[in-house]
């Protein structure tokens, strides 16, 4: 669906390139998260893939075609939800969607249908200037879904949303994946990436030094240890055991047999840890499968 090889880009007047030798592949029906600190080049990558930036080196292909040779008709097949609301503030939600629906040649969904998907149907006739940022972001998402695209670019889709709404949005992303949509997600929210992405890539220094599935990356960057909180009279004491030969570890077995274990969990890394290591320069180059 998306193929990027040796992609390089330098903004006019800039002394250093934003992207150098960037490469990744995204298959059909996959949710891919491009993660990285602000200014790492996530938006630049998106803009190149969306055909909004020219002057790059290397190869960027969408649907098997070079991005540079794609005509405007490609926008019938991709939907974009930007990081910031890009809406007509004095128009209502319904009027906004009707306006954008008129710009597509393929049949579009009814405004009320997509508004219901993000629970905005009751605000359909409300002017967007009265919306909260979270509502505007949901309307942004509605617009991206209006023409039922095969590929979605979602930039920080849960920005400004409370935890409950953010969960609804994440469930929507998973539902869209279930429908076979390919999703290119950029986010700073590692928990979100962990929950919805099949694979993630950490963008740092203009390329992706670390990529893989969230589960494997967490294992790769974590410690194969088990943390055990054990009751010690009225107090709780913390013990750590290597996962290697855990079943034969006498101390662990004693705690287990004495029924002193209050809680235990593996010490795998969080995606936040992976993010810090990957973008802080401490990561090894490679892919965790």
């Amino acid at each position, binding site marked *: 669906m998306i193929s990027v090889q040796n992609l390089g880009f330098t903004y006019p007047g800039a002394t250093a390139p934003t992207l150098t030798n960037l490469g990744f592949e995204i298959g059909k029906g996959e949710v891919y998260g491009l993660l990285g600190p602000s200014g790492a080049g996530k938006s630049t990558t998106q803009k190149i893939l*969306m055909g*909004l930036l020219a002057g790059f080196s290397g190869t960027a292909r969408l*649907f*098997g*075609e070079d991005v540079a040779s*794609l*005509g*405007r*008709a*490609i*926008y*019938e*097949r*991709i939907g*974009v939800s*930007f990081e*910031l*609301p*890009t*809406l*007509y*503030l*004095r*128009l209502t939600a319904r*009027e906004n969607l*009707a*306006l*954008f629906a*008129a*710009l*597509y*040649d*393929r049949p579009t969904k009814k405004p009320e249908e997509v508004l219901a998907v993000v629970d905005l149907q009751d605000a359909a006739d409300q*002017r967007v200037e009265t919306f909260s940022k979270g509502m505007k972001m949901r309307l942004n998402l509605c*617009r991206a879904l209006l023409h039922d695209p*095969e590929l979605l670019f979602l930039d920080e889709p849960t920005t400004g949303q409370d935890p409950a709404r953010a969960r609804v949005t994440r469930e929507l992303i998973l539902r869209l994946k279930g429908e076979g949509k390919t999703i290119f997600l950029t986010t700073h929210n590692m928990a979100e990436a962990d929950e919805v992405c099949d694979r993630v890539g950490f963008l740092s220094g203009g390329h992706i030094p670390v990529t893989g599935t969230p589960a494997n990356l967490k294992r790769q960057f974590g410690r194969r240890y088990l943390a055990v909180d054990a009751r010690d009279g009225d107090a709780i004491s913390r013990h750590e055991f290597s996962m290697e030969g855990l079943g034969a570890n006498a101390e662990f077995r004693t705690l287990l047999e004495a029924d002193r274990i209050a809680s235990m969990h593996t010490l795998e890394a969080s995606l936040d840890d992976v993010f810090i290591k990957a973008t802080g320069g401490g990561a090894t180059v490679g892919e965790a499968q």
Partner: protein
Amino acid sequence: MSMTPSTTRATGLTPKRFTTLLAADTRNAGRDPTLIFGIVMSILPTILIPPFRDAINGWARGLFAIPDLVLWASPMLMTLPAILIGWITGFLFLEDRDEATLLAIDITPFGKGAYLQYRTVATILVAFVISVVNGFVFTPHLGPALILFMALLVALFAVSMAFVFPALARNKVEGLALTKVVNLFSIAPLLALVPSLWRYLAAPVPSFWIGELINPASRPGLPLWAILVLGLLTHMALVVWLYRFTLRRAG
């Protein structure tokens, strides 16, 4: 499903899209008090002056010995609505850029190029209709053919005014400052009243030729055909230059 990009073709500015966008722009402008003021002011002279034309002329004759003030002021009365219509369109452009709706349009098959074309056509259409009415109201001595030609010049002038804002201003605040400079263009047609060839120093300003066309040819000057050609050329040149500039800055 296998669909290559070339199998789907975007059809650009269709009549249905044009009406949808025009309706949205009308709603959008109609919900902003400042833009409503601009809309009202652009048609107010057409509504208010005809019933009081004789009274205004009589008052001016008594005070300043001007025989027909409305005719003398007609170059300004023709260009003022164009400036206001252009100002409204220009501000909608600036909002599109500030709120990034232009970017949202650019990732649709329609694209920002077609959107600029729509705004051009819409501005020409609205300004042309108002100018034709104004032409028959304020300058009936020109006759239908010249009134239609003048309306075309005024419509092109309105488009150039619309592009001045997104081409030269970075945001709405700069746009407001630019409004003061743009208003000077409404004075240019009055320079055509000067009964001397020195008035042609204002020839590079397109709106000057609207005044030159309106004024009676009872003074030294270019023949009518030259006024028509130069008027059209200066307007077209400004529109094309500002359109390109706007398109570049829209990116």
